C-alpha cells in the first residue's frame, strides 16, 4: 500500500488549504486511516466494484497487434469496461463508502473531461446523495455529452467562468463551495492530487487495478509483466496500475503525459519531464506544476481533455524523481495514430486519454522481444467521446449529420415546447 510520510511523498504532497477546510480533511483522514487497515473494508469495497461496476476487468491479449508490431506481447488492462466507461468510478465508489460512513448527504466534484463528474453523478444517484459538479465553461462546451448525462442523472452541473474556464478553475471553485458547505458536504476529488489525504486515499482505491493486473499476469503470462504503461493526467490510473509493482524493480513503470501540439508553452500538459513542470504549491498541495517565473499556473493543452491539467500527482512526482517511474509523452498526432490502430486491429475504441498510454506502449513494445510482456492500462473507452473524436477526424458526413440533427432538434423542441 502506498503510504505518505505525514502527507508527503518525498518533498511533494502536503496540505495547503484555507483553514476552513482543515477540519474536513482531518476528519476524512482519520476515517480513512482507520478503515484502510480493516480488511473487511477493502472487501466491502471490492464487493461494491464487483456487483456494480463489473470488476475485475479483464486483461486482454492483443495477439494480432503484437504480431503486427513485431515486439513484445501487448496486453490491455480493460478499465474501459467499468461501469461509466473509465477507471474514475473505482475512486468514486470508494469515496462513496466513506461518505456513507460520515453521514454526509451531498457531494461535490470538479471535472475536466467530464468523466469524473459523470462517475460522481452516478455514485450520487446510486447512494441517494445530492451532487454538484463544477466544470469549466470551456470544458462544458467541449464535453457536452458528459454534461448531458450528468444532468439526466440528476446532478447539478455548474459552469465555472473564472480563469481559463477549465479543470483547474473548476477545482478552485469546488474548493470554494467546500469551504462553505464542508459540514454537510464531501468533496470527491477525482485524481491522486490535492491536499492530503486525497492522494493517498485515491491511490488506495485505484490500487485495485494493479492488484488485479498482478494476479492476472501470474495467471495469464505465468510471470510478472516486463513493463506497465499508463497515461498520466492527474495520475490516478497510472498510480492505480503501478501500485502493486513498486517493489518489483524488474517491472518497468512508464507514465505517458500529453505531449500536445509541441512542448512550447501552453501547447502541452507535460509536467514530469525535465524542463516542463516546476515544484510549486497550489490547489492544496505541493507538486510539479506548469507555471511561469512569477509562480502563476500555466495554460495547458491536450487533445484529451482528461489529461489537460496543470499539476500532477505528488506520488508520481516523487516516483519520477526517484527513478522508479519513467516519464514519457505522446503528441496529439501520435495519439490519433495509436487510437486508429487499436480500433482497426483489435476492435477496441479507446478514450483519447488512454490512447496516450497506447502510443507510449506501442513504441516501447516494438523495441522489445516477443517473449516479453507489456501491459497498457486502457483507462477508458472512447465511444463516450464521439464529439471529440469527430473533431480529431474531420469528415463532411459528420458535419452534415450535425446540421440535420440540429434542425431536427429545433423542430422537436418547437413541437414539444421542451421539458
Amino acid at each position, binding site marked *: 500500500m502506498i503510504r505518505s510520510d505525514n502527507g508527503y511523498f518525498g518533498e511533494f504532497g*502536503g*496540505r*495547503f*488549504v*484555507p*483553514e*476552513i477546510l*482543515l*477540519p474536513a480533511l482531518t476528519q476524512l483522514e482519520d476515517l480513512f486511516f482507520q478503515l484502510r487497515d480493516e480488511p473487511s473494508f477493502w472487501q466491502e469495497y471490492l464487493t461494491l466494484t464487483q456487483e456494480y461496476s463489473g470488476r475485475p476487468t479483464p486483461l486482454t491479449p492483443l495477439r494480432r497487434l503484437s504480431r503486427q508490431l513485431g515486439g513484445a506481447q501487448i496486453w490491455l488492462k480493460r478499465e474501459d469496461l467499468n461501469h461509466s466507461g473509465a477507471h474514475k468510478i473505482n475512486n468514486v465508489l470508494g469515496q462513496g463508502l466513506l461518505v456513507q460512513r460520515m453521514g454526509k448527504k451531498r457531494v461535490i466534484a470538479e471535472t475536466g473531461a467530464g468523466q469524473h463528474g459523470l462517475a460522481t453523478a452516478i455514485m450520487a444517484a446510486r447512494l441517494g446523495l445530492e451532487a454538484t459538479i463544477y466544470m469549466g465553461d470551456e470544458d462544458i462546451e467541449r464535453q457536452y455529452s458528459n454534461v448531458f448525462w450528468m444532468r439526466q442523472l440528476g446532478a447539478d452541473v455548474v459552469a465555472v467562468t*473564472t*480563469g481559463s474556464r477549465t479543470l*483547474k*478553475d473548476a477545482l*478552485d471553485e469546488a*474548493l*470554494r*463551495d467546500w*469551504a*462553505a*458547505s*464542508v*459540514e454537510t458536504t464531501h468533496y470527491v476529488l477525482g485524481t491522486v492530487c490535492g491536499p492530503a489525504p486525497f492522494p493517498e486515499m485515491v491511490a488506495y482505491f485505484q490500487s485495485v487495478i494493479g492488484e488485479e493486473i498482478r494476479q492476472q499476469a501470474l495467471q495469464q503470462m505465468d510471470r510478472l509483466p516486463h513493463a506497465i504503461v499508463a497515461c498520466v493526467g492527474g495520475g490516478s490510473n497510472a498510480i492505480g496500475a503501478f501500485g502493486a509493482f513498486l517493489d518489483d524493480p524488474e517491472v518497468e513503470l512508464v507514465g505517458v503525459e500529453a505531449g500536445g501540439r509541441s512542448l512550447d508553452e501552453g501547447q502541452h500538459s507535460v509536467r514530469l519531464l525535465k524542463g516542463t513542470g*516546476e515544484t*510549486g*504549491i*497550489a*490547489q*492544496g498541495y505541493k507538486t510539479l*506544476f506548469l*507555471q511561469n*517565473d*512569477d*509562480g*502563476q*499556473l500555466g495554460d495547458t493543452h491536450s487533445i484529451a481533455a482528461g489529461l489537460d491539467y496543470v499539476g500532477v500527482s505528488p506520488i508520481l512526482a516523487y516516483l519520477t524523481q526517484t527513478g522508479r517511474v519513467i516519464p514519457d509523452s505522446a503528441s496529439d498526432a501520435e495519439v490519433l495514430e495509436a487510437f486508429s490502430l487499436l480500433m482497426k486491429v483489435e476492435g477496441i475504441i479507446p478514450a483519447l486519454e488512454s490512447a496516450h498510454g497506447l502510443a507510449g506502449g506501442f513504441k516501447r513494445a516494438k523495441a522489445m522481444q516477443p517473449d516479453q510482456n507489456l501491459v497498457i492500462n486502457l483507462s477508458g473507452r472512447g465511444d463516450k467521446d464521439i464529439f471529440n473524436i469527430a473533431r480529431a477526424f474531420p469528415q463532411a458526413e459528420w458535419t452534415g449529420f450535425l446540421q440535420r440533427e440540429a434542425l431536427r432538434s429545433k423542430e422537436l423542441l418547437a413541437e414539444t415546447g421542451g421539458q
Partner: protein
Amino acid sequence: MFPKQYEALQVMSHAVVGFPNLDENEKAIAGLVKSGVKLIELQVPFSDPVADGHTLVNACHDALKHGGSVRATLALAEKVCAKHPEATFILMSYLNPLYRYGLQALFEKAASVGIEGLIIPDWPVEEIEPWLPTFDELGLSPILMVTPNTPLERIERIAKASRGMIYVVSRMGVTGHQTQWGEDFQSYLDRIRQYTDLPLAVGFGVRSADDLNALAGKTEVAAFCSKYIEWQRNDGSDVAAEKMEAMIGEVSA
C-alpha cells in the same frame, strides 16, 4: 503598527496589485489612506485564488493581465510604505508566487521595504511554525486565520503562531453575502480571545457601515475588502475612496 487589544475599530482595506492597473494602485492606496483606512492588504494576484470570492478572483485575473506579480507588489510596497508611514501594509498572497520567488528572499525583501504583516491563506500553521524565528527576526507579523469550525486546540496553536493580529473568518465559505453579527458571533470571538491578547481582524461579509457599526466594540479591525474592490471596479478608485470616507464617517465609534 497593529492596533492594541480593545482599541477602537479600525478599517482594513485592500489593493490587488495590477488591478485595475499598477498606476491606479498607487492613487487608490493614497485615497484609502486619506479616507481613514489604517491597514491595507497588498494582494499579489494569483491564477488560482481558492480562498477568495468571485470579486477578488476576477480582480486577480485582471491584475495578472496588467502586470500584477510578486515583483510588482514589492515595488509598489516600497513606494507606498515610504509614502504613507501612518498606514500599516500587509502582504497578502497565496503561497506559490512567494515560494517561486524564494521564501527567505521574499520575506527579507518584504520586511526591508516596510511590509509589516503577512496573510497567506493557503499556508497552514504547521508549515508556518518553522518560520517563526525568521519572522520575529525580520519584524514580520504572520497573521493567521481562524474559522468558525476551527477546533479549540487548533485555535490555541494558531494564536501562538500569530503576530500582530488574528484574522477571524466571520463565516463558513468565501462566497455568499449576508453575515450575522449576533450572539453566535460573539461567542466565536470569545472562544478566540481565550487564547490570545492579539487584536482580532474580522473579514468576509463586511460590506456596509451597518456591518462596521455592528463590529465596533467587538473587534479591533474590520476588513472591508471585496465591497471596496467592487466600488473600484464599478466607479473607479476616486469614487471608491470617497465612498470609503463617507462610510467611515458613519461609524459611531
